[in-house]
């Protein structure tokens, strides 16, 4: 690499490229990049030893199905945390989307329809309405943060509370049931033996991955989280991009809301309680950094989601008591982040 002509040039020796110390460096590099994947594989191996039922295709599908809503929400939350923010409203958005979209998906023969005049609508209507409602709440989050400069924690704490109330008000505190078969397919149906919700998560994960890593918008989210002043002096419209990322997070939470409602065949105002924290957990286990913005990936978050799913499954299959389950989950969240911070420091 170092020719004579280059000796006159400024700067230090070129950095990067292949490591000099061979295999050890390679392993180290892999660990820093995809360390969480090793942990995940280790957990799968452990699970298959602990319970012979674990590796059955049916069980595995179930594991993924059960965390698919969390995964959907976590995709958006990852971007929000990367922008050095946080979104606490996702659980409430799930509830609001569930009741609102369900109210437009009720069968004509259902006696207790919320809007008796609006039953039997085309399948697309509840979907569009639901996605619009969730995106709108996300937009409000982004707008509050970008325009009033209040901390994301506070802004989304406010919408979390208010939107939950809105869901109760809209549904008059009752479940919205009697949903059409087409609508229920989203949460209950399968394609080629794979639950539709799992496919939905897969497709949206791929799209989101490309959006975060390969589009300007995605990179600006990383830039804003990494150093907001640098982003600003580079001419990036910080406010606009913040509004977009929170809107996107709201959109994904509403997808999760539709999946949940159609899965249980009823939109209920109490749905999604605590999902926002589980989604944050998935992102954080997957390497999204809370202590400094600009760090986090979609593959990491998906693995984080699966780790939560596998962990839940192990705990159920091995009959650990519910109280212990929560204690173990708590320890794992903190442990994962400690390991992650260590890992990052070694790299510096």
């Amino acid at each position, binding site marked *: 690499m170092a020719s004579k002509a*280059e000796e*006159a*040039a*400024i*700067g*230090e*020796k*070129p*950095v*990067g*490229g292949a490591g000099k110390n061979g295999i050890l460096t390679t392993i180290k590099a892999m660990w820093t990049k995809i360390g969480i994947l090793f942990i995940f594989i280790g957990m799968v191996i452990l699970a298959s030893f602990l319970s012979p039922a674990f590796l059955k295709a049916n069980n595995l599908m179930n594991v993924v199905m059960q965390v698919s809503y969390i995964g959907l929400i976590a995709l958006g939350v990852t971007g929000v945390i990367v922008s050095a923010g946080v979104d606490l409203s996702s659980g409430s958005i799930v509830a609001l989307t569930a009741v609102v979209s369900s109210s437009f998906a009720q069968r004509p023969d259902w006696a207790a329809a919320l809007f008796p005049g609006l039953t039997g609508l085309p399948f697309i209507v509840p979907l569009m309405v639901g996605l619009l409602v969730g995106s709108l709440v996300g937009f409000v989050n982004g707008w509050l943060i970008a325009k009033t400069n209040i901390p994301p924690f506070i802004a989304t704490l406010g919408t979390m509370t208010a939107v939950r109330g809105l869901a109760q008000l809209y549904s008059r505190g009752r479940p919205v049931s009697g949903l059409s078969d087409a609508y229920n397919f989203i949460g209950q149906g399968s394609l080629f033996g794979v639950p539709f919700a799992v496919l939905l998560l897969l497709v949206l994960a791929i799209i989101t991955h*490309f959006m975060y890593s*390969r*589009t*300007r918008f995605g*990179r*600006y989210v*990383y*830039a804003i989280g*990494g*150093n907001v*002043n*640098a*982003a*600003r*002096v*580079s*001419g*990036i*419209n910080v406010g606009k991009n913040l509004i977009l990322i929170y809107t996107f997070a709201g959109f994904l939470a509403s997808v999760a809301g539709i999946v949940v409602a159609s899965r249980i065949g009823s939109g209920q105002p109490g749905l999604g309680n605590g999902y926002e924290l589980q989604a944050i957990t998935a992102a954080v286990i997957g390497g999204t950094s809370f202590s400094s913005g*600009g*760090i986090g990936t979609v593959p990491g978050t998906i693995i984080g989601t699966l780790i939560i799913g596998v962990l839940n499954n192990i705990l159920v299959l091995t009959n650990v008591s519910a109280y212990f389950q929560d204690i173990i989950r708590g320890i794992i969240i903190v442990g994962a982040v400690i390991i992650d911070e260590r890992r990052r420091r070694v*790299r*510096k």
Partner: protein
Amino acid sequence: MAYENILEVEHLSKRFPGVVALDDVELRVKTGTVHALMGENGAGKSTLMKVLNGMYKPDSGVIRFKGEPITIQDTRSAILNGISMIHQELSPIPQMTVAENIFLGREPIGPLGLINYKRLKEMTQELLDRLSIRIDPSVKVVNLSVANIQLIEIAKAISYNADLIIMDEPTSAITEREVEDLFKIIRALRDGGKSIIYITHKMDEVFHIADYVTIFRDGKYIGTDKADSITKQVLIEKMVGRALDEMFYKEKTKVGEVMLEARNLTKTGQFEDVSFKVHRGEILGISGLMGAGRTELLENVFGITSRESGAVLVKGKEVRIKSPADAIRHGMALLTEDRKLTGLYQMLSVRDNMYIANIRSYIRLLSLDFKKIRMDCESQVRKLRIKTPSLQQTIRNLSGGNQQKVLISRWLLTDPEILILDEPTRGIDVGAKAEIHRLMTELAKAGKAIIMISSELPEILGMSDRILVMHEGRKTGELAREEATQEKIMNLATGEVEAIAANGQ
């Protein structure tokens, strides 16, 4: 291209709460010239540049660019108008690559709206080649040295192809050879018809590179001269508003026993094998470029961080300092570099800011001895001539100089024997600066040992009895007051010469 002046600033003013940062200033930059802007810290140079870059909005005044009056809404509109800037505070995004950082906001896009990373890398390579900077475009910035980050910032500013490039202290972290290369780039830009505003504290650079010099002092425009028709002496006098020899109040003091000694302190990546001694009645100056590890070294001595090896001795006895509380107990005090970040409690009163480090000595059974606190604080206000309406005043309403005095009072109340002052006069006005220098001399006379970190060479030369110079975490030399010159220090600070400690035993 037919404008005689690419930039004309007239009657421009900018106020911040409590300070007039720019008071009816003007600036005219001739097209195709390098225009140096000089002045002390707080003179208003950076404020004006931030106005030109769209980060601040002026309260009044006119900016004409290429003959047309313009308003600069934000950084984006500055860039679109053809003004780009190298910032004094380096502002890269650490987790992104060199290429992503340079073309942030201007990434090439392929089909589907995806970023074309291949093209991005090529563009970066072309740019770096043109500037003969040898850095891999795909390496993450977090892995680069401070000097290389600075080169990246320079490359970025040039990549906008702007007609006016503002360089705010672009050489603060690079070596002399790199400075020469930068000057080559600047001359090439100028010969290509670009105009450059060059802000620096270094006299030699001005005479080396600039065609014109404009001087600001205390937020006011002082004058513009051709660089080859002005002498260093006149330049300095215009900057400080009086002759230099009045600047630093220094008296001969009696130097006593060693108060603090550091032996072979090492913390990988920050400082390596650094030793020094400071005596009673002595001011030890610590000089070096940005990122030389000076602050990290002294914060380590004060127990803020841990280290791998080395020992600290107070009055000849080895001590274990694991926290600032330990350091305070051993008679040490640290005035930190960044007043706002690690010094002030902005929302609290002058009094609360002052007694906080000494709170232990005011504790009574269930409360604090507020009468004694008031008396102590009042006596500090008198002694240091702190200008405040009352002890109850919220500290953020004070000027920078008075805030700094309150912070010094905070430490004086603990009655320390060893004072570490990190950039004690940064960003404060000339009058307050002189008072702080006088105070330092008085403290030395009273038998305190003082360590002063400063990035201003005149301050280092004017105040120190001995000068320790660091470069990239290493001690590159130690100079006695009599032998120290600006050139010697710069050679050591840029790592050009590794001198052997000349003194200090």
